[in-house]
């Protein structure tokens, strides 16, 4: 049991949530283990993003609990960036938050390579294309090599090359024992997931 708990990076138990009288999540229970890529798919408005907000702590569930273990990274669906800061400034701001020392920390350098940012490190977010903004949005979540990476629609807006690189990164992360929880309204790459859930009317079921 203890071994299992150590291997469980995220445990969601009986989570329910409603906005006023509109119930969005009903008794959602699932877990993410070390080295797993878990997907949750559902239609727009099915409660996916609400579930992620509860997991990262932005929302309190009406019932149930969420237990996390280890470092967590979160990439929200919306581009939550500072439009007048440059790519490099974003990386420095988040690197400080994650406790990564040095002006050019090595994970950040890796990221600049993986997501091909070298050319635009000094560019402001407002000067980047939509795809590049999404890449930066994603990169800020993985800067500190999190044990559990939580991604809300991570591939929307990415070009095909970036999309492939993302899945390559996901596989490498999994091989390194890290876990990913990916939420999407589409699941083109079903084979990439170890566990896939569907969410419908606030209830979670195995796909």
């Amino acid at each position, binding site marked *: 049991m203890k071994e299992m708990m150590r291997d469980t990076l995220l445990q969601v138990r009986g989570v329910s949530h409603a906005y006023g009288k509109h119930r969005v999540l009903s008794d959602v229970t699932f877990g993410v283990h070390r080295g797993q890529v878990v997907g949750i798919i559902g239609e727009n408005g099915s409660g996916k993003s609400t579930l992620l907000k509860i997991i990262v702590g932005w929302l309190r569930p009406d019932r149930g609990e969420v237990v996390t273990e280890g470092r967590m990274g979160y990439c929200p669906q919306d581009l939550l960036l*500072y439009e007048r800061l440059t790519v490099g400034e974003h990386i420095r*701001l988040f690197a400080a938050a*994650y406790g990564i020392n040095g002006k050019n920390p090595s994970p950040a350098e890796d990221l600049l390579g993986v997501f091909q940012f070298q050319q635009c490190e000094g560019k402001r977010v407002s000067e980047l294309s939509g795809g590049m903004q999404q890449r930066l949005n994603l990169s800020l979540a993985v800067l500190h090599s999190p044990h559990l990476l939580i991604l809300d629609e991570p591939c929307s807006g990415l070009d095909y090359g970036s999309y492939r690189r993302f899945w390559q990164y996901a596989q490498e992360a999994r091989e390194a024992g890290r876990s990913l929880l990916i939420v999407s309204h589409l699941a083109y790459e079903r084979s990439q997931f170890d566990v896939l859930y569907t969410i419908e009317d606030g209830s979670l079921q195995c796909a």
Partner: protein
Amino acid sequence: MRLKFLSIYGAMSARQLLRHRVAVLLLLIIPTLFCTIIVLITPDRVIVFELPTVGDSVVQLENERDETIVFIGCAAVCLLTAFFALHLVQKQWQADRRLMVAGYKSSELLTAKLCVLGGLIVSMSLYVSALVSLFLVPQNYWSTVAGFVSGGFVYGCYGLLVGSLVRRELEGVLCVVLLSNIDASWLQNPIIYAAAEKKEIIRLLPGFYPVQATMMGAFTNHSVLETVICSMVYGSAFLAIVLLVYAWRMRIR
């Protein structure tokens, strides 16, 4: 409270603010424009006004143009700091929440914003004081600066409050424009005050103590300390509400 986090986030906030080039330019142009218009349209004559913080019976005789230049300088500081404070808090609060998931605390974010706002208030006050000095010689220069700073503080805190409470940009701008126009740019003018009937209403508004302090500094030799302290207490009341609302809005599990 971690100093490293404060300094990094504060520096980034200041950079974002300074990169609004047109807004920074307007920060310099608006007070100059206000003073120039006053010089062009206000008659060069002696007028009577009251400074109730000096004493109810005290009536000042001053040049109307000088009085209006000092008053409009204070109004400009109040209006502009409120706008920038609103922008500091209202914009990108979701990105700030993301930073909190990454490891920042809401107290560090708000303190850094307050430091940036403090720098802006002092810079604005010094700039407007220098500008006013081109047209008249204030009785007490540093007391006049203190009056401007207290105006910036009260209205800066008001801007933070609006930014914390009102999520939409247009509504926030309207709240700032409405109060600063009615209060700091109109009712607090000692000429208007002298002729007003329900003076107690004017005394309750946020611009009262800052404008009084500025006028006392510019036209009397009285100490502005008490009036500045009253301004700070007024601004701190706004700030206390800001702290509660901001902490509640930014809370994470």
